[in-house]
């Protein structure tokens, strides 16, 4: 019987189903957990290492404003976020957000007044936490809904009638997460690998530790790697015709003593022309056939674009940027820093950027 079942479901993505069914003997399970340990997660990442995509869809302008609540969207867009990755949340329920709001406010109050026997939800100094789902912030069917957390509080010396101010906000999201990975997780887990926060660090710490204690998940810093930044340069430049990027500004660091920081700003039109020149055939095909629907960008195109920018710089300043690394990129569409801070200024291209960041976060997953 068992054998039959497993033979029907041998593909890695379905391995989970097999495992659940063959729980007959504990010994076998443990043997499995050694053998198939990796496979339970869509074949162990170590065996079929998750790789960075080498090709991605060109950013299309999404009419995200139609789908997402304008107020929420405005918040997401106007802030610079600090990124973290999060391991999957255990038993997180999108239906329990109200209760989470209460628990987290109590938790924060308890943290703040540690060592004081003062009632937790007293009138002053109290914080109000709200959890909400950002409706419409999903792309693929497997993506869990984005969760937005906001903390409001009254300033210490505020008068009674003063309204509470938002002091901290953060959100957990997953946009176009790798379906194999998402499928491989048992149902108890919700995968929202990207955590963006903005506000005082001590509140971030408290929120993180509340999540850790309640959903057995862990937060680690997510930096935007050199390669990801180069991707952003290309992806954003690619949007120029639809929505002006104003400028393409890159900050490079060269490892010399003392460290040299170079700010390299390119005229948007020049950047666009350069980018068009390195773009490969599909564009022509597009014109000719119109069959190619998905306009995709290849890593080679990105690399040759960056290379072209570098050689231009070299021609003028005799400095080869290849020796250094890209630290920061900014255009009118957004800015991103190596340290993991990102600001997305234009909601139209938000999804593309978030897809890239989700991918980065998933790459950081320990298993």
């Amino acid at each position, binding site marked *: 019987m*068992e054998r039959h079942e497993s033979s029907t479901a041998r593909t890695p993505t379905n391995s989970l189903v097999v495992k659940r069914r063959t729980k007959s003997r504990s010994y076998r399970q443990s*043997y499995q957990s*050694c*053998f198939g340990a990796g496979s339970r997660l869509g074949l162990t990442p170590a065996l079929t290492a998750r790789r960075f995509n080498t090709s991605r869809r060109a950013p299309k302008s999404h009419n995200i404003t139609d789908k997402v609540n304008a107020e929420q969207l405005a918040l997401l867009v106007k802030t610079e976020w600090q990124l973290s990755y999060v391991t999957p949340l255990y038993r997180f329920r999108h239906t329990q957000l109200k209760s989470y709001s209460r628990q987290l406010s109590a938790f924060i109050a308890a943290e703040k007044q540690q060592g004081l026997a003062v009632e937790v939800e007293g009138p002053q100094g109290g914080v109000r936490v709200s959890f909400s789902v950002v409706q419409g912030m999903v792309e693929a069917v497997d993506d869990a809904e984005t969760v937005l957390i906001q903390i409001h509080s009254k300033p210490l010396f505020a008068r009674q009638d003063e309204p509470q101010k938002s002091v901290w906000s953060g959100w957990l999201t997953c946009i176009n997460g790798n379906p194999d990975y998402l499928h491989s997780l048992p149902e108890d887990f919700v995968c929202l690998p990207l955590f963006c926060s903005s506000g005082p660090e001590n509140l971030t710490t408290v929120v993180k530790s509340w999540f850790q204690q309640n959903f057995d998940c862990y937060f680690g810093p997510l930096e935007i790697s050199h390669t990801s930044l180069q991707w952003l340069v290309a992806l954003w430049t690619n949007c120029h015709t639809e929505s002006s990027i104003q400028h393409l500004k890159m900050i490079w660091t060269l490892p010399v003593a003392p460290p040299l920081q170079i700010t390299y700003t390119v005229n948007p039109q020049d950047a666009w022309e350069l980018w068009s020149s390195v773009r490969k055939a599909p564009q022509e095909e597009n014109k000719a056939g119109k069959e190619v629907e998905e306009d995709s960008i290849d890593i080679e195109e990105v690399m040759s674009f960056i290379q072209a920018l570098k050689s231009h710089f070299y021609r003028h300043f005799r400095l080869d940027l290849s020796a250094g690394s890209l630290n920061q990129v900014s255009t009118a569409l957004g800015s991103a820093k190596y340290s993991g801070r990102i600001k997305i200024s234009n909601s139209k291209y938000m999804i593309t950027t978030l897809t890239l960041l989700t991918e980065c976060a998933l790459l950081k997953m320990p298993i």
Partner: protein
Amino acid sequence: MAAQQNLAGPSDSDTSSVSDQSVSSRSVNRSLRVAEKERRKNKAGDPYVVALKYFSDVEAGTPVYGNDEVEKNMVLVEKVAYSKGLSPEAISVMLEFGMSLRMGTSLCARVLKCLIPASVVPQEAVVRAVVWLGVGKLPISTQVLFIKWVLTIFDLIDAKDQLRAIYGFIFSFVTEENLCPFICHLLYLLTRKESVRVFRVRKLLELQSKLGRQPFLLHLLSLYKVFCPELVTLSIPSRMKSGFRNHNSTWKSALIGVQKRNGSQVALSNNPAFTIKDKTNSRKRKHYHLELPALSSVVNKEAQTEPSSSRKLLPLVQLHSFAQLLENMHRIELPAQMGSLLGSSLPLQYLDFVQDESALLRLNFWLGYALHEEFLFCGDGGALQTSEEALQFLNKLLSTQHFLQEGFSSSEAFLYKFLAVWDGSLLRPQILGLLSNVPVVPSSQIGRLLFEPLMQLFFTSSMFFKCGLMECLNNMLLKWLTWHSVYALEDDLDISLNSHTSINMTLSGFKDSVMELVDFAGRLSSVGLQLEGCHSLFLSFVLDFYETVCDMFLKYGLPLVVMPPPGVFYPAMCATDPVSVDRLAYIMYRYKVNLTSAKSQEKLTEQAFHISRETFREFNHYIVVMVNCLWNSKMFQPGMGVQLGEELLLKSNVPQYWTSFDLIHHPAFMSYAVDFHQKCWPGTKDMDLNSIKHSKPWSWYLEYLFTQGYDGLKQFVQSNISWQLTAGDGRGDSRSTQQT
């Protein structure tokens, strides 16, 4: 009120005995400083000293942006601060530099963050800095940061008298909205009876009417009331229990780290506020990913709302004995954070039993996260890698894996990545220990995941690493074989493993993996023996490995026989220590037993497996060589594997070179032969070792060798050589039984 008294205790006693205490602590401090100075003189060229000098001399208004010198020096000071802590002098210099805003406000916060004292903080420096507060150029957030810093290191300030002298000055900051809570705390620590004045009480009451009954104000007022009940008529709620709220301070963890490293002469006090801080800070620590979460039960119970809520669950926290575990097996609740289970055996036993997939996954997520953050991503704690904590963590992990008799998949995934960046020496025993727990790797991946990185490490590392790696491979093989044998006991041999595992691993796949591993070890051994000049220590680890390999069929039921490569066989046979030769003989004996039994099974049963002719041929060849060389004195004969040109042998001027590796002349046994000769023919002047070769003495000699504990040799001789005592000098030829 009693509680209040208690609370006031530490600072109260501090105040009462202030004069003598501060005097003594100062003198201690002075001697510390003198020592410090001495040390400093010795290394005046130290870049760190230069950096400090820079900060003490730098002109006001020097630009920060683009100033590499200040950056370089700052980094230097920070490095010292986080590793060893700053000396009292350095604290003074840096604090003065920062608070004076000589180079702007941005540096000030940065300076404050790295002010981690190595021993004590000079009072004068703090007083000067407080004065800078009054100048009023500092941004408010930096002011708060500074007061928080003072609160954190309060107990390390060498004396408090001058600080108390400026009590009034400090008090004036109470009206500053954001500073107020922290100033109250600081005042609380400094207050003496004479500090309590009517106008101060009035000010505090006024603030309270404006701000409401803020705990920090109440605390300070309650202390005032203790000193001068007649001035404070306010009633203090009796429910108010302990100290000021903690500030989740930036310095605490670094401070503890530094003090630990320095063997801390100045202990932090048990100030109530501090003890609370300790707890919360552990959560905040940035670099320490290796701390196990606390074992606590699930908080978020509403989230579950199971239908079977009638069943009362017992949290694991409440379990204390194995008997209790057995009794409550059906209603155990796993903790909120699975990471807390690592290292506690009772819950692990339970976990091993239930095989809850989600629970295992949670444990793996945490473990993988901790390992990755600590050893691979090393965000900000790169230097802490070799720390005691890392060592203890890995040891705990190892003992857990040992207890469960299997590795965690997350540590496996981590290892594959870590091997690529490992230098081969960092935490070597632990890493190799973890590596030996790696489950069977499919043969298609094994090269990329394991062999390539290991090979690089092997060839570039010391002999001790080589030995360690051989041991690790041996343990890995043993574990794989044990898994197999447990498995094979339950099912018939020929059922593929596939039916129970999700990975496509059949018996032949498993055999391929084992084969790859053994081949790999063979290659490493051959080259390793050459590189290390057949070092007997390394050889011994190699032979350990082959002792496992030769018994794979009989001991573990794996139908696979792999012979050692010539690069291992010949060095072992010609080794200069008798133990190695003896072990090789034992290994060859076991090979023979395994092959014989495999062959007979092949004849008996239908579902036989096939051992290739090549294996038999190799085996027979080795046996012939060994017998010829040890027994028949026919070394260097044509067709023996080891061949040397005739002229070369003649040139060597070794008489009867063909006998030079028999049991008498073999470098490993020569001393026994000599010893035997002396015992046999005592008093004989000229020693003719060849005389042992005669039938009688030969058998005595063998007997003598066997009594020296060379059992391997004994078994080898008995199983491979048929020789009659009576038959003159005719030592039997070898005939192995496996000729196919």
